């Protein structure tokens, strides 16, 4: 949109200091592991040393007898869970599998699978005692690779697992393929036959971890009356409560989840791991129990994102993309539920491709159950597609961005599921990238190259509830329930200030526990600023309406003669009658009592969004080191409520994507032992590894939100994998189709080429 069309806002688009900022820079903010209820004791989980084994017996007697031990828990202490599925933001979980993942009952499916736990006065005592638990295993054959797991003679993780598709069982014999998705449109064969150019290539990516700096931790107090309090680090207090209620078979109302500050989640802090175990230990010991994972436990036992194997065949005709045949196999980990369907649905989203056939497979392997990781499913799909698109552009001699623009999706383009896109901004991103100083500058020098790539994420709506109390001094208290992972208190308070026409400084915002606010779905799917923002706006309208009713009474006029505008009420038939927001607030007691706004909603109209990234790299052919020289991330965010935090999200997502492209991977030995379960060996980018990441914010407002918000958090991790790979291809003349493009891989490949 041009500057002239852009609505002018008072608060939106400014960069105020976040409400929780001072607490966080002074060390006062309380994160998960900072809970200190009176009488707190600590626990430790015993984990499987095998990647696949039957549990023959568990003998906890020596641990129970160990001095200082207060309680021991195994799966026998958990009630049997039902086989139902609960939506968890962008992923769904089967509760029986969730329960088995929390504490294995008869079988361990990955190394690090929890088997038992101990509570004691100190974590050291708990650890020593846990080592004294005797578990007898019968090791079973291990399958780790997604394509191997799909073979007919592969070892099975679950002898009852039959392949499902569209809600129906489609196989008659068990396999590791839990489900299949398919999207078909047009005539692929014909389009390939008539194409000007065809590219076909196979890509693989490894499991990678979200890498949040705060390990999983949970503190639970189970009182003798059955009341349970949980201090959690979670992306969704209500999802945490729901899972806990199901696993423990307790009514939801008996569980109060207090959301502590969350030290990073990126999708990984939606499933529960420790909470049910801490609850059992608390019930048995009568004390509040804290369980905290070590870093290696985080790597081995919490959900990373899928390793993938993706086959791509693309065709171009008349200077644009015309056909795509895609085959995606995603590792689900130990239990079904990878993000393959999201991968299959997002993969072609940037382009208007008439003919396509897409097959996706969700495959169980002996690795931890995967969890959501920022735009789950999309980055690996984009890694494959955007490299093939690049190759195709080269094959027909087109500029890679111009080729993308000629093939781009726009409003009305049908997605692979047949739904037409509403207003979207991919073309705007491509144009902004082409016009950027970065793209217009030359890239020169030996071993240097430039790559571009686009990416898409749906962005989510889902459920939010907020309340807003108006104080008699004209300030307001916003009570919401969306875990603040990245500054959303600020983006919500800003929308409230805008909608009420008051100052940002007059809003105080609290993320409340599950007893103190209505239901909120997880902070995930880039939904908080959009959907909880929508709830905040509706609560503001509710307050405006209540104030208009009161003003009409005060003034003796009709309600429709009172307008609320820019933080003031006025009577349209009598100019002398005006009241400011604070003036009306001061009169609450005299005009009917406290004024509270509320809104609970299921947000419709989430706005999917695109990003286009440009990467310049230099590859050292001797050492294989890739230096990212310059990086620009262009992204349509709809409207940036707090541009500094939007930039931060874009930079953070790009940084994770760069790490994924160049270094990060789960490195397994043949027995399924994760060989790099530490921050030293699982090497995430440091400040020294990255350049300053430039951001270009594109604003194509989402028609489904009063201020045009789309969401910002996930799109930026989608393009970097391919942008970096395309840059390396440009620099070296060789296309790397397997991630990570590590120094070793580069040296081996380039050496082999010579």
């Amino acid at each position, binding site marked *: 949109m041009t500057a002239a069309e852009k609505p002018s806002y008072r608060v939106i688009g400014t960069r105020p*200091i976040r409400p929780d900022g001072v607490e966080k820079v002074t060390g006062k903010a309380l994160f998960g592991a900072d809970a200190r209820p009176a009488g707190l004791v600590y626990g430790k989980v015993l984990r499987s040393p095998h990647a696949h084994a039957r549990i023959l017996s568990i003998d906890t007697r020596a641990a129970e007898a160990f001095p200082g031990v207060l309680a021991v828990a195994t799966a026998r202490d958990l009630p049997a869970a039902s086989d139902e599925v609960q939506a968890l933001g962008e992923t769904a979980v089967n509760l029986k599998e969730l329960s088995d993942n929390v504490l294995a009952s008869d079988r361990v499916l990955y190394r690090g699978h929890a088997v038992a736990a101990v509570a004691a006065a100190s974590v050291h005592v708990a650890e020593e005692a846990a080592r004294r638990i005797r578990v007898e295993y019968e090791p079973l054959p291990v399958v780790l690779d997604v394509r191997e797991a799909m073979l007919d003679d592969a070892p099975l993780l679950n002898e009852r697992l039959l392949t499902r598709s569209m809600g129906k069982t489609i196989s008659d014999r068990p396999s590791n393929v839990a489900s299949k998705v398919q999207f078909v449109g047009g005539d692929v064969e014909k389009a390939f036959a008539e194409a000007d150019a065809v590219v076909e290539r196979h890509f693989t990516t490894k499991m990678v971890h979200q890498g949040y700096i705060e*390990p999983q931790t949970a503190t639970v107090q189970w009182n003798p009356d059955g009341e349970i309090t949980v201090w959690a680090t979670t992306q969704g207090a209500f999802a945490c409560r729901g899972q806990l209620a199901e696993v423990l078979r307790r009514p939801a109302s008996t569980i109060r989840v207090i959301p502590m500050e969350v030290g990073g989640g990126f999708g990984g802090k939606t499933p529960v791991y420790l909470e049910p175990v801490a609850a059992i230990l608390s019930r048995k010991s009568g004390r509040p129990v804290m369980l905290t994972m070590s*870093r290696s436990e985080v790597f081995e036992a919490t959900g990373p994102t899928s390793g993938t194997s993706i086959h791509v065949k693309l065709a171009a005709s008349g200077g644009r993309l015309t056909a795509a045949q895609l085959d995606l196999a995603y590792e689900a980990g130990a239990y079904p539920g990878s993000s393959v369907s999201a991968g299959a649905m997002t993969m072609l989203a940037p382009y208007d491709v008439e003919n396509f056939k897409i097959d996706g497979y969700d495959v169980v392997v002996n690795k931890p159950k995967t969890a959501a990781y920022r735009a789950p499913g999309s980055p690996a799909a984009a890694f494959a597609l955007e490299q093939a698109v690049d190759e195709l552009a080269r094959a027909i001699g087109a500029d890679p961005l111009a080729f993308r623009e000629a093939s781009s999706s726009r409003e009305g383009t049908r997605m692979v599921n047949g739904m037409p896109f509403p207003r979207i901004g991919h073309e705007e991103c491509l144009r902004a990238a082409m016009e950027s100083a970065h793209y217009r500058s030359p890239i020169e020098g030996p071993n240097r190259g430039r790559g571009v790539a686009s990416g898409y994420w749906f962005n989510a709506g889902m459920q939010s509830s907020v309340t807003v109390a108006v104080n008699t001094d004209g300030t307001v208290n916003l009570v919401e329930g969306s875990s603040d992972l990245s500054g959303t208190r600020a983006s919500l308070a800003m929308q409230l200030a805008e909608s009420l026409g008051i100052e940002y400084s007059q809003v105080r915002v609290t993320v409340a526990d599950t007893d103190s606010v209505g239901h909120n779905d997880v902070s995930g799917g880039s939904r908080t600023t959009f959907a909880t923002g929508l709830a905040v706006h509706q609560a503001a309208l509710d307050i405006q309406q209540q104030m208009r009713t009161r003003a009409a009474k005060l003034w003796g006029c009709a309600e429709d003669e009172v307008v609320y505008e820019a933080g003031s009420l006025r009577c349209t038939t009598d100019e002398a009658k005006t009241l400011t927001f604070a003036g009306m607030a001061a009169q609450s007691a005299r005009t009917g009592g406290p004024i509270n706004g509320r809104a609970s909603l299921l947000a419709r109209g989430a706005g999917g969004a695109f990003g286009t990234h440009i990467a310049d790299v230099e590859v050292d052919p001797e050492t294989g080191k890739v230096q990212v020289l310059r990086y620009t991330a262009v992204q349509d965010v709809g409207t940036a409520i707090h541009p500094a935090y939007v930039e931060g999200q874009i930079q953070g997502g790009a940084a994770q994507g760069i790490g994924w492209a160049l270094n990060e991977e789960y490195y397994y030995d043949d027995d399924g032992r994760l060989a790099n379960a530490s*921050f030293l060996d699982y090497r995430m980018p440091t400040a020294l*590894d*990255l350049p300053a990441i430039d951001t270009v914010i594109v604003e194509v407002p989402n028609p489904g939100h009063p201020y045009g918000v789309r969401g910002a958090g996930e799109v930026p991790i989608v393009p970097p994998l391919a942008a970096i790979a395309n840059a390396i291809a440009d620099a070296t003349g060789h296309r790397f189709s397997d991630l990570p493009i590590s120094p070793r891989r580069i040296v081996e490949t380039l050496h082999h080429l010579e």
Partner: protein
Amino acid sequence: MRRTQVQARLNGADVDFLCEPRQSLLEILRDELGLTGTKEGCSNGNCGACSVMLNGRLVNACCVLAVETDGADILTIEGVADGDQLHPLQQAFLEEAALQCGICTPGFIIAAKALLEREPDATEERIRYWLAGNLCRCTGYDKIVKAVQRAGVQMKGSAS
């Protein structure tokens, strides 16, 4: 296990505590002394979330045994602000939006303080090098580096 008495200076005040030989300074700070501002991200020296100053040197508290700190002078994030006056680094982190989740922030502020007190003019390259021992997974570091540069300018201004 037998516990040893340790006396030290912590954020400008005398403290004493009992600790087991196997307990780290991080554990004592957080679990015995209630100073939870120093964070735990890995407990093996790889993330810098537990950065504190020990006798004027930047260390990872998870890699220091508490018994080693007898007679030492320790500064944690809780001792960085001067009463209700934020340190220029704390102010700069707020103004530059240099934190998202905030779990890494105390460690970065302590580490950056150690650098700027010696080198307020540190270049971007130098800052990136110095801070490479601190992991942040949220920000991509750009805004952290900018905040440190901004604080450096301010600290120099107030020193002269």
